[in-house]
């Protein structure tokens, strides 16, 4: 059982604060989770949470454009942010004597972002985001898989129906008004968790936090997530799509609705996902890659989502002349076979997760992100220390029951990519 120290308190304006000290290396991480992500976007505004994340780096009242990056890089720090379905996180890791700098920068954009916003900055970041979409999705083989899968697994009325990157038409239409409204609605201390992790003095850190974040006014109530969050636990049928695209190899993806991260049944789903696809002793690797040789690579993982349902996803990439139907049959056979999971398999899955978690928390930035997550999603940062116990408690019976209930033909979204008729004959690349 892990025992990372953690102290939690709440400022008067509603900002939740987690402090976790570890003096072994003179670095400190700060991490903020805002309780807003793509699920909060309304129709016609998809992709906005992520565009807004970009705008958060465009300066604030007391910090000119590029200054945030300059100051953190100059301090010898690293920084970034990511947008996801249920949240947006911002983080810096800095040498420990620069803690106040990082807190001041984060507080300035939490409290004083809007005065720095201009049309020019918005136009610039719209271009950057559109290039991000082209680079990471449009100009990538299989790059649009999540757009297909999310639309197949979640109904149009559900907030997970659309992707985080969103629609480019919606991004084009975003205005400064939208930026201001989004900021006032969601970027408020009562919708945020701040975690400080690493080498720092407790009282000094609290003093910095009070001074820089304390005067930011509490915001209003956070509006309900748009659309219909509750949904049937299963899709109701097998949904299929076949995409002919400029891809090198056939690939079959299969996704299932699964219980949310906040549901006790989630852990059986997580273990099932690991038994299926984590490691070379996993069922998919052993069967599809090593024995049957129908797949070049295999993957499976669970999306730990919290609105209505999460997702378990598995995929297998075939060989150039391979038959996608054969690939799908092999993939489904292994998924259905999971009902006969053994204790040894669960032990392996948990052992691999334990090592992976231990390696993750070697970095204070990762630790801070986990504490923020457990606070934001579970109202309980301590939960990090007991997370492995919940995985260890999963039995073969739990996994079998999960497989019966959630991995059947009434809950499948199957997406098949097939290479479009070759435009040219491939030639060796080194000449």
């Amino acid at each position, binding site marked *: 059982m892990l025992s990372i120290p953690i102290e939690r308190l709440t400022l008067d304006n509603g900002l939740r604060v987690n402090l976790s000290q*570890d003096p072994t*290396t*003179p*670095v400190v991480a700060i991490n903020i989770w805002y309780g807003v992500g793509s699920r909060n976007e309304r129709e016609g505004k998809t992709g906005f949470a992520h565009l807004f994340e970009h705008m958060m780096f465009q300066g604030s*009242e007391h910090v000119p454009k*590029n200054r945030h*990056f*300059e100051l953190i*890089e*100059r301090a010898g*720090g690293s920084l970034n942010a990511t947008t996801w379905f249920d949240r947006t996180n911002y983080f810096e*890791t800095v*040498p*420990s*004597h*620069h803690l*106040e*700098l990082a807190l001041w920068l984060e507080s*300035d954009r939490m409290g004083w972002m809007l005065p720095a916003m201009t049309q020019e900055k918005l*136009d*610039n970041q*719209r*271009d*950057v985001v*559109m*290039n*991000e979409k*082209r*680079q990471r999705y*449009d*100009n*990538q*083989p299989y790059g649009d898989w999540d757009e297909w899968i999310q639309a197949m697994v979640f109904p149009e009325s559900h907030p997970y129906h659309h992707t985080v990157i969103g629609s480019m038409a919606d991004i084009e239409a975003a205005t400064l008004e939208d930026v201001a409204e989004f900021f006032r609605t969601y970027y408020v201390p009562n919708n945020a968790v701040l975690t400080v992790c690493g080498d720092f003095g407790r009282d000094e850190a609290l003093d910095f936090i009070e*001074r820089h974040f304390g005067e930011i006014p509490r915001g209003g109530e956070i509006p309900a997530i748009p659309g219909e969050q509750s949904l049937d636990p299963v899709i109701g049928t097998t949904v299929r799509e076949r995409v002919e695209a400029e891809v*090198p*190899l056939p690939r079959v993806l299969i996704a299932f609705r699964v219980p949310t991260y906040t549901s006790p049944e989630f852990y059986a789903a997580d273990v099932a996902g690991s038994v299926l696809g984590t*490691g*070379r002793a996993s069922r998919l690797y*052993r069967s599809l890659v*090593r024995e049957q*040789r129908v797949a*070049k*690579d295999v993957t499976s993982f669970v999306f730990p989502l919290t609105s209505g349902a999460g997702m378990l996803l598995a995929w297998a990439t075939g*060989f150039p002349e391979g038959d996608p139907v054969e690939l799908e049959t092999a993939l489904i056979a292994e998924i259905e076979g999971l009902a006969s999971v053994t204790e040894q398999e669960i032990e*392996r899955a948990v*052992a*691999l997760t*334990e*090592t992976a978690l*231990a*390696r993750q*928390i*070697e*970095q*204070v930035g990762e630790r801070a992100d986990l504490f923020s997550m457990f606070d934001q999603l579970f109202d309980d940062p301590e939960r990090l220390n007991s997370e492995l116990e919940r995985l260890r408690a999963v039995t073969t019976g739990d996994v079998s029951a999960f497989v019966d209930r959630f991995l059947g033909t009434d809950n499948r979204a199957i997406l098949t990519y097939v290479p479009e008729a070759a*435009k040219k004959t*491939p030639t*060796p*690349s*080194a000449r």
Partner: protein
Amino acid sequence: MSAQSRSVVPPAGPVRTFDFPPVQAEVLDNGFQIRSVQVGRVPVVTAMVVLDAGEGLLDHGRGGLSVLTGDCLEGGTAKRTGVELAEALETIGAGLSVGTGWDSTTVSLSCMADRLDEAMSLLAEVLIHPSFPADEVERIRGQRLAAIRQREMNPADIATTASRRLTYAEGVPYGRPLGGTAESVEPFSPDAAAAFVAARYRPKGSGLVVVGDVDAEQVRSLVETHFGEWAGETELRPEIDVQPRTSERGIVVVDRTDSVQSEIRIGHVGQARSTPHYFALRVLNTVLGGAFTSRLNLNLREEHGYTYGVRSRFMVRRGAGPWCVSTAVGTDVTADAVREAVTEITTLVAEGPTEEEVDAARDYLAGVFPLQLETTGQIAARIAELLIYELPDDYYADYRDRIRSVTLDEAHEAARRCIRPNEMTVVVGGDSAEIKGPLEELGWGPVTVEEAP
């Protein structure tokens, strides 16, 4: 707190010193080098075997042999089938991964500290007694061929592959993709893997780096137990040839019809790890394209919005690796982006960086050093570098001082010596019908077009 005081950047607190953790060095009787570092933040250990078995040793005809041999280690040992090996490792939560580069092959293990004995025994078994069963070798060769097919259709890889080929003269290893080509991978066999292992997976000439919650004495005893019986000496390395393909500047379009973006690579032959300009180049490259606030990124991304990001890298290797600026930009702004990038590079070389930029780059690189040494894996990789490039064990003790002591003149000198704008090859993977004309209008150099693979 008043509005005025908010405007003041908070001062830094007292600096806490950071020292690279002490490295214990030993050599086994068989010549196997041991380096260990005890860090106890989390009860995990990374053990990394470093072999003088990089792709840079191999001519084009054998390209990919080192990568494939490394991949085939999962095929099993004299004692275990591949499945049994995977189960033995994963039952104790251990991960085994093989990394092959131009200069080395590393076989790394990570596990909880209390499983280290069993894990180390498996690591030794994999290295000393790999079995290369024919059917496993055949499977893994097939996977590699499929991966090559994927690479040949990935827009970023297409541009990078063309850039390397156009950077180096015919036959230079660095001019081909790391994992080889369909032709060079075709003849791979169990015998080829076994012969490569016999020549290059030998204790003398190799080393083991162990970092984590374990002391030097335990490490020594574990290594003696598991690697003591290993014998032999790694064969000498051939000299590496790094002739450039050309010294003329030019633009090559690799045509991908209807491409939604252009993948741009700008560069020429760069520097070896042993370059006397190493520290000055790190500073110089940070100014040019190694950080978010570098000139290239502030121009192409933050000012013009041409791209999601752009970077410059000197890939220092045993021989002179490539220097390359890379980015992906919108098709309609391709020529503009090339013009801006070339102008930034040319201006930096001609005029040099400013004192303020050099100062900021030094602070960044010196400050970020401890952040890059938080994990056992990061520390192990740094120490592996010392073994690969035959650097002294105390190399990192004054690393930050050496960064901080780089002067403006040294950074400018490094730019003039290591970047030659008139010899750059610009590779653009994109839609020729849209971009060829505007690239010609730049008037920067001749534009040629080739078909994508």
